[in-house]
């Protein structure tokens, strides 16, 4: 979620809570040695912080039931961001410091990791969608990437087969109009040999199992190779080279989309499980503190 002007209310409320907490802390600290978890005000900070943590964690549950009419999910998300941001100061005020022993130390470190990953995630959500929009104009549904990739291989196979004869790979004979769309003409086998060789040895492996390390994954290298290939071919096949270049570009965009999608969502692999671990340990901490 992008934090924009529409968050003003939340920002003000969070600022007020933070300022009030800091003021209360300061007032308490001037009279006492500073709150710890056991003091009334420390306990208050702990309860508020833990309450916020519970609310923040419930976002996952909210998202599991998207059509429950219990407030718009974006409102929950706003709460997640702002109240989540408040938890660290409140817990620090509760603890009185960043340090601790045993469980509290583990809790604090875990908390810091979750907090940091949350900030990283928020930053990702601010920046990455824009980058995807700009850098992947041919973006498809993430789950469909495999299917689109298979279509690209079929299309390229058909294109090359139409230009230079049947390939020695399983090529769908009646390809869906790709041959008609392709700007190729059938030429003598000898003339089309470089195209065939390039396709079978370089491009098809790239399309079949794409990797960022492949030369064709880099636009500059790919352009140079295709230019070189074009110089070896008769003009009738230059159109086919252009079509192959487009296919390579689409494949590169798919690779880019996969990578960016991964970056956009990978932090959740850290943030979500550690959040639940944190909650579990926090509950243990609460019970432990209350019991002893």
């Amino acid at each position, binding site marked *: *979620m*992008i934090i924009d002007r*529409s968050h003003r209310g939340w920002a003000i409320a969070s600022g007020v809570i933070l300022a009030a907490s800091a003021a209360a802390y300061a007032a308490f600290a001037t009279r006492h040695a500073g709150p710890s978890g056991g003091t009334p005000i420390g306990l208050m900070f702990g309860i508020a912080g833990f309450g916020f943590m519970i609310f923040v964690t419930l*976002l996952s549950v909210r*998202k599991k*039931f*998207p*059509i*429950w*009419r*219990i407030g*718009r*999910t*974006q409102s*929950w*998300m706003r709460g997640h961001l702002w109240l989540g941001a408040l938890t660290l100061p409140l817990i620090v005020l509760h603890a009185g410091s960043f340090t601790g022993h045993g469980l509290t130390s583990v809790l604090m470190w875990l908390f810091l990791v979750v907090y940091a990953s949350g900030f990283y995630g928020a930053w990702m*959500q601010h920046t*990455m*969608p*824009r980058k*995807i*929009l700009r850098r992947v104009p041919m973006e*498809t*549904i*993430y789950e469909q990437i495999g299917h689109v990739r298979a279509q690209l291989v079929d299309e390229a196979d058909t294109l090359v087969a139409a230009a230079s004869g049947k390939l020695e790979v399983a090529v769908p004979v009646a390809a869906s109009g790709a041959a008609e769309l392709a700007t190729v003409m059938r030429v003598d086998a000898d003339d089309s040999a470089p195209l065939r060789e390039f396709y079978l040895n370089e491009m098809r492996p790239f399309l079949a199992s794409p990797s960022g390390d492949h030369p064709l994954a880099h636009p500059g290298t790919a352009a140079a190779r295709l230019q070189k290939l074009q110089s070896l071919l008769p003009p009738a096949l230059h159109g086919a080279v252009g079509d192959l270049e487009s296919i390579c570009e689409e494949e590169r965009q798919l690779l880019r989309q996969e990578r960016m*999608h991964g970056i*956009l*969502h990978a932090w959740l692999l850290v943030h979500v499980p550690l959040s639940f671990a944190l909650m579990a340990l926090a509950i243990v901490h609460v019970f432990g503190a209350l019991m002893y």
Partner: protein
Amino acid sequence: MSGSIALTIDGREISVPRGTTIFDAARMHGIPIPTLCHQQHQTPVGVCRVCVVDVGARVYAAACIRECEPGMKVKTDTPPVIQARNTLVELLMADHPSPCARQQQSGDCELESLAKSAGIAEPRYARRLSPRGRDDSSLSIAVDHEACILCDRCIRGCDEVKKNDVIGRTGRGYTAGVGFDLNVPMGSSTCVSCGECMVSCPTGALTNKRIVGTELGDGDPPEPEWILQLPVFKGVSGTFLELNKGALVKRHFAPGDVICREGEFGSTAYYILEGSVEVFIATPIGHVKQEDAQAGWFSRIRSRLADRQEHTRDEEAARRWIPIDASTDLPYDKPVAELGAGELFGEMTCMSFHPRSATVRAKTPVVVLEMLRNVLDVMQKNKTFRAELDRKYRQRALETHLRSVPVFASMPADFVAYLRDRVELIRYSPGEAIVRQGDPADAFYLVRLGFVKVTERRPGGDIVLTYLGRGSYFGEMGLLGGGLRTATCTALDHVDVVRIAGEDFNLMLSRFPAIRASLEEVARERSEMNRQRVRATEQVPIGEFLTQGLMEAQSLLLLDLEKCTRCDQCVRACADAHDGVTRLVREGLRFDKYLVATSCRQCRDPLCMVGCPVGAIRRRNSLEIIIEDWCIGCGLCTRNCPYGNLNLHPFDVEVPDPAKPSRMIATTRKKATGCDLCMEHAEPSCVYACPHDAAHRVEPLTFFGTMLAAKDQGRTGNTAATSK
């Protein structure tokens, strides 16, 4: 003036009755004179001049029209005569597409035979530069103007022999040709496809069309002689029936046999010869209703079929008839009707390939004629058949048809009886204009069959205002307003309309003020809707916006791609809200930073409505697209939607077991569904569930207005800066 006269032809002294033409005199005495434009049973016109003979005068005479005179010395085969004749044939051959269709089919093109016998292989003269074209609009007769030699035999066949008066001469000199009615395509003319013109034509200009490879399979193809004995086939060309023998079959059905099923695609129509059939809609009638499965906050929407008794939409209270592809409509409360001998059903399926609108089951032992499109076309043009169909329509269906229109529901029976013989039943071919904008409004129209496109002419092009199907009406705005048509109404496919003349319409308004008030209200609503639409078009001149069809939408689901994290919560929410069947796909066109998701746009030009065989998809007064209870799940609307935004939603329902009607069995039936905006709630589930404030349902013109205006301003500014 009576008695015989003596003359000499090619040295032979002969005697013939006074008034005999040279051509006839020669023929009577076994002297052949070639001709192209003349036939024995037609009035001679002497236009081809191929029959020229030397009568000793300054110029050669056309034997077919020149009468014999006493003492006349006629020479038919002197070298100069033959040379003159050959020159004429050679000139005709120069423009003739040899071999023409007739020569290819049967090898008996008279012109080409003549040319061959005269030894004319390749004409020395140049072909005409501008082609005269073909006319393939008729389903039974192919017209190749290139092969026409302007002999007028078809004209005389049509006018003199059959008295149909359809064909005539058009143009002059170089542009001369034959035309149909007021020079309209043959398929749109009043041609009854009797075939006389084809029989008369000496070349391949008019030939039979044969449906190739689509002959009806099993069944009993009757002999043409038998068919011609049926009154409804009176006057139909026997040659046509012979050539299209497999396109018409006789079928027998036992009581209970299903003749056709609703939703199926087909290409044939049925004419009942004997017995009676039951026409009904087997798909359960009910809305796809969204409702909360549990009350309160933790609610969950679910889709289900709501029974019609259980839930009726407000505006449906007055609608009591379901339009189908037959001469009658089905009552909404009990959608069953009976058709008997002499009735036709499946016309729209046959002519426009719409899905079957209802299931038809034999009630008694039934004999039907099942026919393909070309045969139906010939039948429909047959005056006897047309008159019989129209008579039945006036008797049986006109009243229910009129009453199916809510504003006419209260019309007294005596006025319906008054209208019964006064209304005109008119048929229009695809693309034909029924009324034109700006013309005087002289009639009111009720759509009986097919779909009508309503457009308004504006600077920059026509704007589609709406589509009207069976049961809709038009023409009231012009009659109620200033007396001029406010829009053009064009037949989208084969359209039948009921035309109520202006004076009858006005009489109705004066006698029934309630009808007048309702019509004025409808006219006001339509006028406002049209104004809104035109305003929308004028406000948004941006190319890409138009190209993507966004202007057509009333409501778009947009995903802000700068905010969207591609988490698919929107799709999940939609699926959860609709029994696991999502009505949106996070894919589609992009406009600026927005993705226009695949979800119903509530288009202003709802192409999905075109062709619905039972008229089940329509607009609500709020312009929202709504699917009626009686949707038969044929899926035509889902295919028609240009954006892929409508789906078929399967439901488990209980229906009577065909083997044992008293027992109910579970089966799956489909109903078309589109985004319903989760009307049960204040906000669509997809938007409600988006955690990132990226999904929005918007009215595109308002939403994009500012952006487009800013862009436009920016462009203007740039241009100004450049010009400075």
